[in-house]
């Protein structure tokens, strides 16, 4: 079932010029943190449009607001001002329940530190988004099994996260991010904790996902990694410094 939607999405890719369909759009968003009396503005009016099937990397020096932006894109946090459309939905005025629902339905997360749940097996971790979507059990089991095989962990279904290497854990996380067939996959420094070989494996998986038409937004510190994406956005001090697209 998952493969069908992926191939459907792939057909869009064949004619990119015709289908520059926006999946996520931020309009002049700002974010200010208040620490007691002190107010610290981290994002100073960012406007970006992300299109279906794009593979985007976000770069910039430490503390420039990359993770802050990713949290907003991931509906984990809300901007202080500005608007954020995810697909056709304006998330700016959503309450906690609606944000939870949209995260579960439209977003996939890949974190630097994998963030698997230690007491659950590989399979159960991959199923988790479907569980909160209320999928029937046998169906989510099937999807999770297929995805585990796809990231090369078909023989590790009943393992616990601590029984896996870092690279394997991150692959479980990728499978989990794919399980709900999200509109956008968000990855904040996905290879930050990995050696270059495991990191390369992850990036190869990203390339595959991109070829299958998935929309990927990745934060990275490495120019080399960013080269593999088709669009590089640089932030500096909470502003977009540059936005290069090439195919």
């Amino acid at each position, binding site marked *: 079932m998952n493969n069908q939607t992926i191939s459907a999405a792939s057909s869009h890719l064949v004619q990119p010029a015709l289908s520059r369909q926006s999946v996520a759009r931020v309009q002049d968003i700002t974010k200010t943190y208040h620490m007691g009396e002190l107010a610290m503005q981290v994002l100073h009016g960012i406007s970006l449009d992300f299109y279906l099937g794009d593979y985007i990397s976000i770069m910039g020096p430490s503390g420039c607001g990359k993770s802050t932006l990713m949290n907003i894109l991931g509906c984990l946090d809300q901007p202080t001002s500005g608007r954020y459309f995810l697909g056709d939905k304006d998330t700016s005025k959503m309450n906690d*329940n609606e944000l939870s629902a949209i995260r579960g339905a439209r977003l996939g*997360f890949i*974190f630097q530190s994998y*963030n698997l749940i230690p007491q659950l097996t590989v399979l159960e971790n991959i199923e988790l988004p479907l569980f*909160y979507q209320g999928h029937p059990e046998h169906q989510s089991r099937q999807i999770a099994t297929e995805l585990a095989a796809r990231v090369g962990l078909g023989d590790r279904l009943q393992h616990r996260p601590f029984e896996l290497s870092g690279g394997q854990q991150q692959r479980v996380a990728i499978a989990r991010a794919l399980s709900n067939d999200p509109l956008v996959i968000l990855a904040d420094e996905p290879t930050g904790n990995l050696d270059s070989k495991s990191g390369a494996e992850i990036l190869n998986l990203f390339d595959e996902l991109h070829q299958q038409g998935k929309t990927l937004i990745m934060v990275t510190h490495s120019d080399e990694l960013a080269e593999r994406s088709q669009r590089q956005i640089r932030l500096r001090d909470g502003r977009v410094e540059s936005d290069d697209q090439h195919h």
Partner: protein
Amino acid sequence: MAGWNLMTNIIKHPRLLSVLQRITVHVQPAYWTRFKKTAEVGIKSIHAHGLRSLLTVLGIVIGVAAVISMLAVSEGASFEAQQQFRALGSNNIIVKSVKPASLEASSSNSGRPQAIAYGLTYEDILTIQETIPGISNVIPSRIIKKDVRHLGRDVSTDVVGTTVDYPASRNYSLRSGRFFSEEEMLGQRNVAVISDEVARALFPMTDPLGESIRMDGNYYNIVGVMEPEAYSNLGRSQAGSSNAAPTRIFIPLSAARYRFGETLVRQASSGVEMETVELHEAIIQVQDQEQVEAVGQIIEQILERRHRRVDYAVEVPLALIRQAEESALRDQIVAGAIAGISLLVGGIGIMNIMLASVTERTREIGIRRALGARKKNIVQQFLIEAVILSGVGGLIGVAIGILIPVIISIFWGMTTIVTVTAPLLAFSISALIGVVFGIYPSVRAANMDPVEALRHA
């Protein structure tokens, strides 16, 4: 730990799950699946901290076990007491002769033997019977300690001289033969009905019916053998009897008077002691149970007027039954208080561990929230966990609480009664404790900011 594993395995047991599944066929399947999964996760994380979880629920375990076993012991004691008092007859009032302490001292001072007189008299009984309306029967008895022989054997017994209604008044029945009759009473005949213990002591091989026994040189013909007394400790006479098993012989009161007289001679340490007691005991039967306690008070007043000393005692079994009931109620209140305290302590333990669990699993909460869990889901997850903890604690407590009374019964021979309500009540309260003390940690978990939670180490 092993016990804990067993418990969690029981919960995870597929049959239990399938039973639960069958119970909830009418619940929406998706909802049930989610509940089951959430419960599974709860069990897993409890399992992951086995020892800690076990220590946490110890308060609940002890509370529940203590309540059930305390109630069982108190219920058993109350039942036993009520049975004993009921055996005395709830329509009966028992009046007894009691040797006053003052007499004991003066008699030993005097140089030559002197008969001391005390206790109930025929006059007393007659007055009671004539003054108080509503008395259906009075069964007086004399109780004398005698050695009884048959062939080479002898046994020390309480010889009870009484009237024909004695067995009926105390619900005693005969194992074989009959009680002595009215004619034998009038004729002061030497007939005897022996207790089961006497029968076993004197006639281990043969049927005692028709045989003769000897007391003080006189022979008595055995006409009946009593059934062993089920509840004998309070039923047996206190006047001149030891606390041994009730080896008793019943003979007509008339014969007892005629053969033994009213003055008993006893060899005491200070020399020969003589006592004159007309009657040792009288059972007064009241027609209407409602009137028993009132009649008891009137009897007290009559005896108080007629006696210079308090050389008598009035026992009202019905009042004793009531006292037993009251003391059972008191025990229940105490058990309830202990239950309350230990369950409160148990609840605080659960809250404590749940708060620790929430802090420990902050990151997990963040992950779940990122993956689409609503606050409600997080609350449910931790609440289910708290309820499972306290519920399992409750189950262990129920098991131990049912076991302890059994052990008490086996090793101390006490009657214990585990009612159906006690374990049910204790268990439901323990589950409720899980909910009550799980709410705060669960809500706290749900209200965490997802971004903050994900940043947590």
